[in-house]
């Protein structure tokens, strides 16, 4: 399914350490018909957290031989309760004739726009464009340094 959705993300970037905290997320999704609005909202919130992890810390790292090094919760970092930002969700209902009660769907769709929104917000905050995720502190810090030295 396509994502008929928009995400706005607010970040705080510490330029000394490269740490980017996501403080606020607004997500608007056209689901056609929210048959159970509370569950749809929960699904959107979950997708936002997943996108946040994708954008900020989740990374699959392989060894030279192709072994997965990040193969546990201790190494493949997913968001915890500590990382959950302030989330606002808006559900738009523009019914689809062929969907049940007009529903289009939601599911994994809320994940899609969040990581790009995070990198856009980082650019908006500090003028540094990342073309790689996750936007780990190391990557952000390196990008800041490269920009500083390019200007010299």
């Amino acid at each position, binding site marked *: 399914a396509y994502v008929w959705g928009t995400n706005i993300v607010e970040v705080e970037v510490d330029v000394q350490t490269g740490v980017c905290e996501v403080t606020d997320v607004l997500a608007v999704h056209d689901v056609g018909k929210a048959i159970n609005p509370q569950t749809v909202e*929960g699904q959107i919130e979950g997708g936002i957290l997943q996108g946040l992890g994708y954008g900020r810390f989740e990374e699959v790292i392989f060894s030279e031989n192709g072994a997965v090094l990040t193969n546990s919760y201790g190494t493949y970092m997913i968001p915890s309760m500590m990382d959950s930002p302030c989330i606002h969700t808006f559900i738009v209902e523009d019914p689809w004739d062929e969907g049940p009660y007009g529903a289009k769907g939601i599911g994994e769709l809320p994940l899609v726009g969040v990581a790009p929104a995070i990198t856009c917000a980082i650019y908006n905050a500090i003028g540094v464009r990342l073309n790689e995720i996750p936007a780990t502190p190391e990557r952000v810090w390196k990008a800041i340094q490269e920009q500083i030295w390019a200007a010299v």
Partner: protein
Amino acid sequence: MILEIFINEILYREEVSPEKRLLDFLRDDLGYMGSKKGCEQGECGACSVIVNQRLVNSCIVLMAQLPERSRVLTIESDEPIIMSLKEAFVEQGAIQCGACTPGMILASAALLLKNSNPSEEEIRVGLSGVLCRCGGYPKILGAVEVVRDNFRGVS
């Protein structure tokens, strides 16, 4: 070894291997299926139970580690705080797929039993050991706040 143990206030006297994990004892020996096998490494919190008033990951607790006549609370408990949390989680829509729910409720109960008036930050810290991938954390946080606010009135 023979072990006497209270599960949700019911006394059991069982023959059990000392190296058996508490999670397997609860699920396989006694049929308490509510505590989940998430990662089996003590990282995800889906197996969380309260043992002698302490929140533990039951997947990394061996039966041999438990003091005699230990008291264990699981999600199946009808302890008032756990019942209130179950109700709040349902009403607030804090259950998406439900895999983390038993762990989240036990972690919330452990927090509220120690601190009946936690701040939002304290709730986040208290629940930080249980991972949720499906519904995110906002509604879970909301449900715990509802129970906190109701209990505040009572005590």
